[in-house]
């Protein structure tokens, strides 16, 4: 018995449409199709069910794994004390809200959380994060609007160390990645943090809106250049957007998706599940 070793055109066309309409992008879609054709030539398949499983497996392998030094699970032991996390991304993607959710999850897992309100630019940004800190029941370091964001990041990192916090989450202002001055400011914020705690920030999480198109790749590349992204958070997956942009980004830049945002309430966050995500593309 031999089985089939090529995929018919109709299946490939359907796959292309699913992937493109999920914002996977043309380049990554072509790569996925190439991989599938190689895999099928090698492993052969019998029937649609087996082919479908194969398709999904190939896509899952493009998504990077979370590592022990940057664990996604909230009850996992943190490799540093304090474990310092910087949250970055373009305007309006959900950074501040995600920090509120992360605080709640970490606190529920018994960790001491400290927040840093380093978005000192946008109207009412500090007030917004303060409300989240109250909701989560965690302390916050803030110096109001127009303070120096690097100073807030520095002070938060220092305070996390002196207070014995387990984890510090630092919010930054939304910024478009093509604005050199803003990206330089972010690099400075990162540099300054390492001066008070060695290795800080231990994580730099890029927040992406699931409804973003191919520009997300430019965002990821530019933010990697400026502050070396270590993980992704994908928000607004409670909408109809599939967030397929993370596949190419995770694969090309070798960063895992850590969390997904599924709503506007404090508990609307989950640790990323690769298989569930890929199944949802087809579902």
């Amino acid at each position, binding site marked *: 018995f031999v089985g089939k070793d090529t995929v018919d055109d109709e299946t490939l066309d359907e796959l292309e449409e699913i992937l493109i309409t999920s914002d996977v992008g*043309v380049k990554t879609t072509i790569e996925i199709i190439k991989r599938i054709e190689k895999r099928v030539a090698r492993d052969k398949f019998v029937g649609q069910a087996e082919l479908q499983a194969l398709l999904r497996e190939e896509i899952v392998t493009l998504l990077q794994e979370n590592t022990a030094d940057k664990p996604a699970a909230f009850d996992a032991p943190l490799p540093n004390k304090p474990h310092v996390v910087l949250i970055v991304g*373009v305007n309006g993607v959900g950074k501040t809200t995600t920090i509120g959710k992360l605080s709640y999850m970490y606190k529920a897992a018994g960790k001491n959380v400290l927040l840093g309100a380093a978005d000192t630019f946008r109207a009412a940004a500090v007030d917004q994060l303060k409300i989240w800190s109250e909701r989560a029941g965690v302390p916050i370091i803030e110096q109001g609007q127009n303070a120096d964001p690097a100073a807030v990041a520095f002070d938060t990192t220092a305070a996390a160390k002196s207070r014995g916090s387990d984890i510090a989450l630092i919010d930054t202002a939304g910024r*478009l990645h093509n604005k050199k001055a803003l990206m330089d400011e972010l690099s400075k914020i990162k540099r300054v943090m390492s001066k008070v705690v060695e290795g800080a920030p231990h994580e730099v999480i890029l927040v992406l809106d699931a409804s973003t198109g*191919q520009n997300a790749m430019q965002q990821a590349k530019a933010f990697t250049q400026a502050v070396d992204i270590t993980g992704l958070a994908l928000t607004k997956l409670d909408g109809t957007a599939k967030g397929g942009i993370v596949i190419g980004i995770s694969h090309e830049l070798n960063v895992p998706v850590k969390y997904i945002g599924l709503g*506007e309430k404090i508990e609307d966050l989950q640790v990323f599940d690769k298989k569930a995500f890929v199944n949802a593309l087809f579902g």
Partner: protein
Amino acid sequence: NLSSNLDKAFQSLKGESRITDVNIAETVREIRRALLDADVNYEVARQFTADIKEKVMGSGVLTSVNPGQQFTKIVYDELVETFGGERSDIAQAHTPPTVILIAGLQGSGKTTFSGKLARYLKQEHKRNPLLAAADVYRPAAVNQLKTLASQIDVPVYSIEQKDAVRVAKEAVSMAKSLAMDTVIIDTAGRLHVDEEMMNEVAEIKKAVNPDEILFVVDSMTGQDAVNTAKEFNERLNFNGVVLTKLDGDTRGGAALSIKTVVDKPIKFVSTGEKLDAISPFYPDRMAQRILG
């Protein structure tokens, strides 16, 4: 860019004197790919490319000296035509106040745009606007609108109760009693699949009967743009679209998808975080941007 990619596609056609279904396939694929890379919706890109192909068949493109460039011009012209004319007009009520409702998905830039629109109407059209803080959910949303409004010396109407419809209604009554000629209602970001929230914004519309409803969209939106635009249009029959964050480097294909699917004019673009970063929509600039 598209023009040079098309030139490459045409290299393989040297010596062919007439356009045929076969030799145009490569070129049409290049155009479709350029549109998809620019985030144009899959179905919109397919249809748009089919229309281009039809326009080009028998048009003598291959006989021109520079077919790649000529082909690109056909695509460019088609884009400009789809977008319609330049716009920056807002309806004006016969009896003041003119009521403008601002709606859209979470984080698209509505609150900032509400401030920008207030400043624009005050400055360019000598209006006397009142801002209504009808986002009663987001932490510090009212505060955010008030902070922006204070920068341009525009008053904000807000209430303690979490009742968006009431804010809108009372803001309009307040404007009437104070002889303010314009009310701009900022609303909470909402998903088009959130029944309750879509009902709320439909309620607001019913309660205050806006003269103008603007759908605010993040220009970096991908394939999902048509789903949200369709549903918001179904529920609100909005008058126009605002594209935000165009100071980024996104190609903005969502603009073509939305215009094609709901056929409503793009009236403004937002090009920065400051309140003066608003401009009319220019179809030719958008076409250029999408072509990359």
